[in-house]
């Protein structure tokens, strides 16, 4: 039986891990050399964060798990990332918009965790927030430049925004785990970040001359609790293939 704290750690770890995995798919195929390097750098930062979160989660689980058994030997129903990060890369506009929406949230979420009563969590947040602040600066800048670039880039960015927008809702929906973490002074109330997120995103989209999708509409959720889209199982099948086919091997 995993504690709420353990599941809380898995949520942060899985968000970082799955998004890093998606970005890794793109490595070496970017639209420009500098961009390729920058995106790979983001993938590396996220992977580093994932390792810290998962190692701490493994420690909390106390059942002999480690970062690798958590990454490689859990099934999709045991993953706790939000649906946004498992969405396929699509075109480069989709990859960037997904990253922007996530970075804007992660930057706020990690800032909240800086004040966590849990010293180990606050320490990870302190390292990660510096990286994520830079990611957000970069993606915000690109959203502006591509939104306000050519007609074509504007259309691609707007379409990506429409496609990914529904997935932002889940970032702000709390559950019993969140409530327990808030009560313990460890975590934050997800809904409390919504206004700041919306206001930041609105400002960037306005500068990018992109239209913020209308409020309401489809709001898929369930990733945090382990109920995912069809995409996650495939992603894991690829990611986990070697440890699954060579049980017990060390790499």
């Amino acid at each position, binding site marked *: 039986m995993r504690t709420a704290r353990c599941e809380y750690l898995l949520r942060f770890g899985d968000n970082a891990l799955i998004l890093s995995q998606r970005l890794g798919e793109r490595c*070496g195929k970017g*639209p420009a050399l500098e961009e390729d390097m920058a995106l*790979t750098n983001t993938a590396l930062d996220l992977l580093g964060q994932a390792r810290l979160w998962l190692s701490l989660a493994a420690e909390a689980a106390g059942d002999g798990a480690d970062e690798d058994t958590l990454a490689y030997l859990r099934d999709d129903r045991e993953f706790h990332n939000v649906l946004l990060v498992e969405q396929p890369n699509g075109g*480069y506009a989709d990859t960037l918009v997904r990253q922007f929406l996530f970075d804007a949230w992660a930057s706020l979420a990690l800032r909240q965790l800086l004040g966590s009563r849990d010293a180990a969590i606050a320490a990870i947040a302190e390292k990660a927030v510096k990286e994520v602040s830079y990611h957000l600066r970069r993606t915000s800048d690109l959203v502006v430049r591509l939104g306000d670039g050519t007609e074509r880039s504007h259309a691609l960015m707007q379409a990506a925004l429409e496609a990914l927008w529904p997935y932002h809702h889940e970032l702000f929906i709390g559950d019993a785990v969140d409530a327990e973490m808030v009560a313990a002074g460890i975590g934050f109330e997800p809904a409390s970040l919504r206004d700041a997120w919306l206001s930041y995103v609105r400002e960037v989209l306005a500068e990018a001359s992109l239209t913020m999708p209308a409020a309401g509409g489809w709001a898929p959720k369930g990733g945090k609790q382990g109920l995912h889209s069809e995409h996650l199982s495939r992603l894991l099948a690829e990611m986990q293939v070697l440890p699954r086919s060579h049980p017990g091997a060390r790499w």
Partner: protein
Amino acid sequence: MYAQMVDTGTPSSATIDAREARFQQRIDDGIRIEPQDWMPERYRKTLIRQISQHAHSEIVGQLPEGNWITRAPSLKRKAILLAKVQDEAGHGLYLYSAAETLGISRDQMVEDLHAGRAKYSSIFNYPTLTWADVGAIGWLVDGSAIMNQIPLCRCSYGPYARAMIRVCKEEAFHMRQGYDLMLALARGTAAQKAMAQDALNRWWWPSLMMFGPPDGDSVHSAQSQAWKIKLFTNDELRQKMVDQTVPQAEHLGLTIPDPDLKWNAERGHYDFGAIDWDEFYNVVKGNGPCNRERLETRRKAWDDGEWFRDALVAHAEKAAQRAAAKAA
């Protein structure tokens, strides 16, 4: 320098000889040639060819290893591999920049690659079939690359030499990481050890081919050596690679796939079997297992990214116009 030569017409052969003699003297004296210095057109062209080919190799070289990023079997190995592939992109960047100092644009070089006019190292046209191939590339391919590139840190062209210093430091790291990966497999399960041996079997000969044709058949060697943009011959470097690698393979408990390989005490080197040069020339000509796929992947990435690059240019122009309007 281009413009100056056009302006003055074709110099007499005596002028060329005098200039070239001074140029060669500088090289012989160990003084670096810098972008603003006069240089013979053949030197410039040879260097553009050599440096851009090297840059393209770094960029295309991202693909075979990148193939395993999503399937790396531990998070630590995944981080190492991501960082490595990113380093290769960085090397491509320095090298394109070094080549640009010779008066060619990066876009032109990329276009030459995509049109099939420019080459890249033949090794990257082989497939990475298992995880052990990632280790074999680090150990053997980066090992060969270092062998070739360390002397280039002392080459006559300043920007290239300086780029090589940083590239070599990182490559040395990659080689150790590749070897460490192979070591983990060699000490692992029977299936892992078999994977490592299979990778060595497939990468050994292509790695030796990386140094290029035997000295007798190498058309550019003599001039490049005089210009100090090539400091050792292909065969010298190849021998060094074999001598260095054999004990490493023994330490891994793996067998080098060459029945003729044996220590020659008289020469103080390992003798090794004949290389299949037909295979090498065939791969260089475009008929390797992955030539088409590699080039197609690069072309697609470039074509798919066109809107992105165009948009950044368009935005910069808009921003400049807005700034100008504001100032007016």
